[in-house]
């Protein structure tokens, strides 16, 4: 059973307020500075990390909760990335994979900003077109740009549609 109280506890922790020392569900601790990405569809945390280019090689401290019980999503993933705040471009790509995600910016254990991701109408410079014959694949002075569809994105130049599936997007993410 996934009661609302469980989800509430993880929310409290995400805000850096308290875990009360008795939360057996969350399994991750609050962070001092960084970003908490909450309400990622269950099972997509690693895809989100892939899209953000976080593979641990740069020494980032990352905590990941996968398939945590959630009221809103049934099962959700939660990511806590220390000492890093996401850029606009990163949020744009994140919105394509996890449109229901909430972003908490944490500074000194406190939530300095909390917002939902917003799906833009168009994303530029954050994905590369998978079509090798697309004009954006050459050496032209052009920024790959995609219209955001209900499911997936579409290259404004060649019309190629990139699926909504996280793996599809993370393979072609080009940010940072």
């Amino acid at each position, binding site marked *: 059973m996934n009661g609302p109280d469980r989800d509430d506890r993880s929310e409290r922790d995400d805000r850096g307020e308290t875990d009360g020392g008795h939360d057996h569900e969350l399994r991750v601790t609050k962070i001092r500075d960084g970003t908490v990405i909450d309400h990622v569809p269950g099972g997509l945390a690693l895809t989100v990390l892939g899209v953000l280019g976080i593979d641990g090689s740069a020494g980032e401290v990352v905590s990941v909760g996968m398939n945590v019980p959630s009221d809103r999503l049934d099962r959700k993933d939660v990511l806590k990335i220390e000492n890093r705040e996401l850029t606009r471009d990163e949020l744009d790509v994140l919105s394509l994979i996890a449109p229901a995600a909430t972003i908490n910016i944490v500074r000194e254990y406190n939530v300095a900003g909390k917002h939902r991701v917003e799906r833009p109408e168009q994303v530029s410079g954050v994905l590369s077109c998978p079509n090798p*014959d*697309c*004009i954006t694949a050459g*050496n032209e002075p052009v920024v790959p740009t995609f219209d955001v*569809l209900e499911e997936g994105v579409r290259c404004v*130049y*060649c*019309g*190629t549609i990139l699926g909504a599936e996280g793996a599809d997007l993370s393979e072609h993410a080009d940010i940072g």
Partner: protein
Amino acid sequence: MGQHLISAKQLSRADIERVLDHAAALDRDSPTDRRSGTLLGLCFFEPSTRTRLSFEAAIKRLGGDALDMGAIEASSVTKGETLADTVRVLAGYADALVLRHPSEGAARMASEFVSVPLINAGDGAGQHPTQTLLDLYTIRENVGLDDLSIGIMGDLKYGRTVHSLSLALTNFDTTQHLISPESLRLPRGVRYDLEAAGASVQEHTDLDPVLPDLDVLYVTRIQRERFPDDAEYRAIAGEYRIDATALDDAKEGLIVMHPLPRVEEIAPDVDETPHARYFEQAKNGVAVRMALLDLALGGGGIFAERETGSLADWNEGEDSP
């Protein structure tokens, strides 16, 4: 941004009828001085015979002249110049540009760098909207554009003429029968647009069952390079060839079209049947391109005034249906 013709997706029914009506008028009057003093830049990064020559014939019949970039082997492209730079320079020499390029989206990108009208004459496996206009002109002259059953056969995946034609036909009351091997069905992007437009489309792997229903059979070439080996190509291409006997079950008024060049997909004995329209279709390229150029160079633009889904909307990044 000028009035560019990049994709058939831009074309509303009003746009199409405006161009076709104008083409019919120019075809009747055959004027020679409407656009005297104008220069059309021909930028062909791929070989072309019909498209290039019909654009050249069109501008000359309007009283203007053409500046041909020539073969790319003899141009600055071989020095590594970008397409963006090439069209920016040529736009300074000419009043409008016609571009053919092997990369999909090339015309859309090029249009962002020029202020003169730019017309897409084929971008890789993308779009070929001027071919579509002359196709529609030919269909309208022969069987009309509404209450139409059209079969489009061959390479639907890589065939840019098919992508453009299929999208433009959604403006009319047509049923499209798409006939191809499984591996050469329409690409996802075109399917998406057809679905969004609510098009009536049926897919088949065999021509025979649908042939008796068709008013138009539009045949395209299946290219050898799309197949890993020659045997597979020969086996598949052989199934999508027609000859005069194959058309025995067709309606008397069926017209057979082809964007040309044909290789083996239409046997020469079809030429002698009353169905053949492909040479008439190629000839219509001049009148239709005259109409397009006359509208583009006249300052009023290619596109009709309209309520929704205009080129202006499209240029602003909106996805018109």
